[in-house]
């Protein structure tokens, strides 16, 4: 099972995501934003956290138009897995792979702390390792994590069970407490919390490790390995 982690100028969680995927058993390739193709056989594309292009213009907007973007979109179009974390979530919404936008936190301040979340659905390759409604804790670190979409979109996301994670405490003013959403085919996940920062005991929590482990197990199944 192969993962590809994209690096944009200003990405700063790319290594951390690569480490977490490697720990879960993936072979991880690093992809540069100026590349135009993903390595052959890529199962999962990781779009990491950070401040791609300095968050200038609008978070994720420039990265969404990077040379590598069409390859990511094509991978998603083929039903490939894509995981966008933090700035990666912003990039995926800017690419139109996920609905909604991430606005400035309601408190207007950057917020870094470990927060309580509930798992909205266990029906995805990313969240299948958690029981539905499971209470977990993951770190957040963002200035623009306030999820906004129109009511119809929010209703639809909830109706289709595509809310992957919800904040169980006030964090950033997100609509309906949404911390992570799935695409229609449930194979693209965008989330503001950082599972890679809670993936080994030294982090003080391992709730994020289950996401990577379940994804790895599923990617193996997909390959019939």
């Amino acid at each position, binding site marked *: 099972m192969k993962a590809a982690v994209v690096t944009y100028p200003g990405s700063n969680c790319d*290594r951390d995501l690569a480490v977490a995927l490697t720990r879960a058993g993936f072979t991880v390739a690093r992809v540069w934003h100026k590349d135009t193709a993903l390595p052959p056989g890529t199962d999962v594309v990781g779009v990491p956290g*950070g*401040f791609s292009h*300095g968050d*200038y213009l609008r978070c994720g907007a420039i990265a969404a138009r990077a040379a590598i973007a069409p390859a990511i979109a094509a991978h998603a179009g083929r039903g490939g897995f894509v995981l966008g974390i933090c700035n990666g979530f912003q990039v995926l919404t800017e690419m139109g792979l996920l609905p909604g936008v991430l606005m400035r936190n309601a408190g207007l301040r950057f917020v870094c702390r470990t927060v309580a979340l509930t798992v909205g659905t266990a029906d995805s390759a990313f969240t299948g390792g958690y029981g539905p409604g499971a209470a977990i804790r993951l770190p957040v670190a963002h200035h623009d994590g306030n999820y906004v979409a129109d009511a119809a979109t929010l209703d639809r996301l909830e109706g289709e069970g595509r809310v992957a994670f919800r904040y169980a405490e006030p964090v950033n003013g997100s609509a309906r407490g949404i911390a992570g959403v799935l695409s229609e085919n449930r194979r693209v996940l965008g989330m503001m919390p950082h599972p890679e920062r809670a993936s080994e005991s030294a982090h003080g929590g391992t709730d994020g490790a289950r996401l990577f482990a379940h994804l790895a197990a599923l990617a193996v199944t997909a390959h019939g390995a």
Partner: protein
Amino acid sequence: MQEPAITPDLVAAHGLKPDEYARILQIVGREPTFTELGIFSAMWNEHCSYKSSKRWLRTLHTTGDRVICGPGENAGVVDIGDGWALVFKMESHNHPSYIEPHQGAATGVGGILRDVFTMGARPVAAMNALSFGVPGHPKTAHLVKGVVEGIGGYGNAFGVPTVGGEVRFHPSYNGNCLVNAFAAGIARADAIFYSAASGVGMPVVYLGAKTGRDGVGGATMASAEFDDTIEEKRPTVQVGDPFTEKRLLEACLELMASGAVISIQDMGAAGLTCSAVEMGDKGGLGIRLHLDAVPQREAAMTAYEMMLSESQERMLMVLRPAMEDQARAIFAKWDLDFAIVGETIPEDRFLILHGNQVKADLPLSQLSSQAPEYDRPWVPTPPATPMAPVPDADPLDALRALIGSPSYAHKGWVWEQYDSQVGADTVRTPGLGAGVVRVHGTDKLLAFTSDVTPRYVRANPERGGAQAVAEAYRNLIACGATPIAATDNLNFGNPERPEVMGQFVGAITGIGAACRALDFPIVSGNVSLYNETDGRGILPTPTIGGVGLIARMGDLIAALPAPGMVALVLGDTTGHLGQSALLAEMWGREDGDAPPVDLDAERRHGAFVLAHRAQIHACADLSDGGLALAAFEMAEAAGIGVTLTPGDLPTLYGEDQARYLIACTPAQADALASAATAAGVPLARVGHFGGDALRMGAAAAPLADLAALYRTAFAAALFGAPLAGEAHVA
């Protein structure tokens, strides 16, 4: 363009005293050009030349088995074993932060990060020590908000975890806040890069962002006292771009790995001037610069402006000529400027050419070696006045006074705005004791702390200086780390006043003695003088940034107490209340002497903690606020109550040094008691953890009530909001 004539007024406007100008005339042998005057002013101001402090800095303890590089380079370097080195330094950005808090603080962070990665190290941890005026002062809330946003905005985007720091409030900082930024990075010990140029005819390369007019004269400003014209100085503050700095980091590390770099120096204060002179001087070479080749952000910049610009995110490098194409390709990949702007020359000259004209032609080595050095007159600080009698008070009222004050309240409002976990190697985030970060890919941990108690330093500079070192040492020990080295950021008032110079001399004497006794060398540092407004100086604030090493995860002490655990105090308690937090916060008093510092006891008690860490579940150093505050903080973090047997103020709030609070099981406590007896160190049982109340002697209060006060007091004091929560704070 017509350059201004050199007049006594122009010389004075450059911060040069008449005798200093006479010295310039002697060196140059003629009247200097305008550009040359600017160069001298940049090189000879206090900020760059350390002319008032050098003599005293030499007395510090700067060597040791682990020291690879002591003071004098961009940052200090220590050996942390297995081929790894830690590169670190702390530096102030006080004046710019007061003028423009967001950019001033941001570029302070940017500058210290560059100091670290210039040496080939990837930054892995940051801290910042902040001192502000009282919350009621009209500027304070604005400064706190701007400085914290600036630090977060830069460090978060750059991608370095901020794992510790301090925030204090005192009226002496009303007109002059302190922003001291610390950064540490990891490198292979055999791949450290230095600034000394070598080889004649080697290309001098300019890297990074373009040069603009921002910050022209910044280093001179940083060496001047403030007065009511301060607002006019705003244009001298630089603007930071963490996105460029992040790319500069990646490009520099890639370039260094390629073998193309002979020497490298970041452009900090007085940008191109200081960096070029530094490289030439250390290498015993001259430098010729062609300013037409300098990447410029603005049109029609003069030689003077380019030489003094403090535009951020720039580096100067001497390149291996054969590798030019490879080097260019790396910078093109990261979309950064790369320009050959000069070369090394054999003769002792600093030759600046612009538009076919010689703008400066100076003997390079004399720019730094002939810089004035002063043995400023100083008077010893008089002995502290004896402490007036301390009235009796309810110990819980005393605790409420402390945890309800912004200096001792929970600082989550501050550190939650800093990314403390980027890198996914942070093992202990801010909030309780030293921050801890793992060396990536290894089991080794590094601990970081920054400490000073300015009240002590004012009352007794020598004792206060030693205490700052001892407290940093204890904070490292308390998490199981062996203290290995330190950096100092010495913030004082106007050194031309003998009583201020006396504070400086006293503090440095104390710091030197403590570092020597504790084998805790100072490997880098920074001096910030002239921290005065309208003739009133700040509390002397020599911040000590300490680093410690923990061999493996299992050696870390970072747990929280559990119900049923015993509370022990290691070290002697005499109940010293002079200059204590209790006096200051409860009664607004700052009298008495600083607590005595017994360096031998510090050493023995520290060694005891490390030797018996297996028996220690949780540990905290006892410092300002004494036993009561430390026990409350530990209990509050664990979310359980604590009962302290003593009920008297001196025992609860005394600030005797060389003490630790330990939480452990009763069985561990017995083992520790035997070991303490055998080792001859004092160890006393003072209470236990559990329940949901805080009890001191006969007084008791629900922990939840105290925690609510503790967690809301900071924002309430500054912004008038109970717990700013997610609401907008104006």
